[in-house]
């Protein structure tokens, strides 16, 4: 496990978790552009949790963990919010999932046990 951390899904923690993860990945040999892509993907997944996960309920946690297996980096971002419910009042422009898919090698979005949302991305290094 390279990184494992949970914080309240609040806007300020998007940057906190992104920077911590980036620090944890520092010893791993990753190209500069790939490193930037990872930061963009993680930022988007965390933003999704901070903006959408806990609408209409008390803010809960968002957890990030990263594991390295050979040359494959797996990162999951998990919240305990209301799950994947479409929003007609979404403040975004609907580009998020496309960005996650475009910048990662594998993207899986699920709602494990119907409890919150888990975004899992893999990067071939």
């Amino acid at each position: 496990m390279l990184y494992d951390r949970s914080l309240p899904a609040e806007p300020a923690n998007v940057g906190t978790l992104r920077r911590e993860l980036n620090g944890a990945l520092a010893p791993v040999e990753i190209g500069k552009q790939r490193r930037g892509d990872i930061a963009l993907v993680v930022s988007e997944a965390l933003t999704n949790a901070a903006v959408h996960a806990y609408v209409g309920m008390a803010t809960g946690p968002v957890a990030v963990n990263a594991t390295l297996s050979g040359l494959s980096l797996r990162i999951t971002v998990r919240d305990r919010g209301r799950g994947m419910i479409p929003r007609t009042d979404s403040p975004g422009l609907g580009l998020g999932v496309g960005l996650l898919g475009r910048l990662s090698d594998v993207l899986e979005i699920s709602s494990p046990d119907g409890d919150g949302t888990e975004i899992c991305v893999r990067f071939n290094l």
Partner: protein
Amino acid sequence: MTNHTHRRRRRSRRRPLVPHATRRRAPAGPPLDVRVEQHASVAVLHISGEFDLCGVARVERALDRAVGNPTDRVVFDLRGVSFLDLCGLETLMRADARARRESFAVAVVPPPGPVARIFAVTDIDHELRLLAAD
């Protein structure tokens, strides 16, 4: 309860579940700063630091102030931005949509090198008016 707490403490002393290095406090990111310059009917928003969800409200307030004056054009100068994610980019897109509604123009001076990648990977570089950084 006491015993349970005691056991957990002993375990954490023996073998941390996560390496100490990953438990360090995150290095403080460059705080987002927005400085507005007004040149006749052109407002320039100089933005620096990390432009993510946390900075959206600050940039939108600065835009409100800028277009509160007679303004034909708003320039977002991102040369000082060290990280730009989709949230920051969507803020620029909303500003551009607002400009079309309210009859002013928006232009963007992109951030340096790798930070500007978000424009290309979203194809939004074709939609926003990007100015040369020089």
